[in-house]
């Protein structure tokens, strides 16, 4: 597991406490009953602060799963290299 993914898991765990790492990694807004609009906004704020980046409002609706966040962060890091 990459250092980036470990940090992302911590972000998810802070918003969705009590879940295992595997459960967090497979999370998405449709399957998780407790993933609501407040969770989305909070998750975005945590990720922005943790990774020192700014998520554009129009991107936010597409960040609806752990995978989506992981892919988003991966693309950002590639764009920055």
């Amino acid at each position, binding site marked *: 597991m990459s250092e980036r993914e470990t940090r992302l898991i*911590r*972000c998810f*765990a*802070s*918003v969705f*406490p009590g879940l295992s790492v595997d459960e967090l990694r497979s999370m998405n807004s449709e399957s998780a009953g407790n993933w609501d609009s*407040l969770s989305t*906004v*909070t998750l975005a*704020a*945590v990720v922005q*602060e*943790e990774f020192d980046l*700014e998520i554009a*409002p129009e991107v936010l609706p597409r960040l609806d799963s752990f995978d989506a966040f992981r892919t988003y962060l991966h693309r950002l890091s590639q764009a920055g290299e």
Partner: protein
Amino acid sequence: MCVGRALQVDVIYKMKLIEALEIAKRPVAAAAPQMRVFLACGFTPLYLQTFMAAHLRLLLPEVRFIVKTGLFGDLVGSVERLDPSSVDSLAVVIEWADLDPRLGLRTHGGWKPMDLAGIVKSAEETATRILRALTEISSHVPTVVSLPTLPLPPLFATRPIHAGFLETRLHCTVASLAESLSQQPGLRVARPQQLGEMSPPTGRHDVKSDLTTGFPYSLHHASSLGDLFARMIHNRPPMKGLITDLDDTLWAGIVGEDGVDGISWHLDRHTQMHGLYQQFVASLAGAGVLVGVASKNDAAVVSRAFERDDLLISKDDIFPFETHWSCKSESVRRIVQVWNVGADSVVFIDDSPMEIAEVQAAFPQMECRLFPKNDYQGILDLLKHLRDLFGRSIVTEEDSLRLSSIRESGIWRDPSQFAEVSSDAFLKSAEACIVFDGGHATGDGRAFELVNKTNQFNLNGKRFSESEWRQFFTDPDTFIVTASYKDKYGPLGKIAVVMGKLQDKRVHLNSWVLSCRAFSRRIEHQCLKYLFDAMGANEITFGYQATPRNGPIQEFLTGLLTGPPAPGARLTREQFVARIPGLFHRVEGTVHV
């Protein structure tokens, strides 16, 4: 709920949101006391709620906090509709948009010059409504308030470098609101200067978040405000005593080497900061803080130094002086013993890192601070830190009496030094007078303070939050009796509090405290006599609980009950009369039960 002193948190802690979420969601013991905080704000509370809960958890880890919020966009309505019995504490965050929505960014109400006077007038009317609502609710619920922290939008016609009439009038409205609120007894207003140090104004507003989510604060500002509110809600009791060094601390120079005229604390000698320290310590003494001196010095030389008439603190403000060549920790031990306070409520100040280390090793729980001589900013920062440790909302008459009564208490510890040798004879000669005030009042700040800070003669160590205190007296059977004391050696002020319930001539004591300054005077016997005689009780039950520090009351009750006390121990009038020693006080008092 326990309101005892938690860790000293005066350091600006930049908590991240992820940390706040983790802290706020830490599990709490099932039996943990609960505190319900209502957060009233006009915007979506989002992370402010999270940060406030997290900072409260850091201050009081053993308490389960529930931070509730009201309707967004209706700050005043949320406060006006609040049921006081549903919360233990109220936090109110006022922003410009709460005074008039056009002072925020989320409405298009118009900023034409012709609109501006109306905006200011509307803000004034809302401020009046806020004042009325907060005055009412704060008489029932402890309330903390912050006034607008965000910058005003550029609505005024003047250039940003220029404060025009209407904008100035708007600031006056807020200042006037703050002034009125700060005079309400159950309400505390956040200090803008402190918030400015924690969160500089330019980094507070997150415009994107304000417009996209309705939450106007940057995460850092939300954390700072949450921290400030948590500390105001917690409102920990102030420290009790300050022990200070002299050379290169209270004054610049070594008095034993430089001579009495060689030491200084003045601008022209570049030693002004020592004068400010003197002035500050004198102000602490005036507010009832115990001040002692521990200095490796010749006592006679120090005594001559304190005769200098330009000294900014009087020797009468200090007791005791430990000026000799023994180690500092021994001096500190003696001072703490004379004051009869816990080392954890005392601060030690010295310019020598070695002395600091030596005292800290002897008293790990004591706050030991290096006096940063020659560091102007460092000394000012120290004074600010000390103000945080010793600051109090009100200064009572008892505060000004504390030092003199401790000075006189030496007489009580060793009455044999006087002509009267028997205890009874000595007590008779003291010409003591006790004034009892019995009733049902909840607004006695001194009684609240005594119950929450007394450790030794304390029936059970029970502490009260402000809301618990008010709640206790909602039962019509409850009573509170306070006792004030004076004798020929001077007044002690209000030194005892008895609280309980009276039903069918039976008194159940929930709380009973007696200041350690008032020991050895049989005031405790007189308190019980008052309950039997003035309140007509036939029997008293004691809500006793042993604590690590309430040995004195345990000893007293053991003598009176002829055995170690247990929770619910009983004492009848007949038993009391049979065991009471001679009482020689003149007793005055009222009972309104």
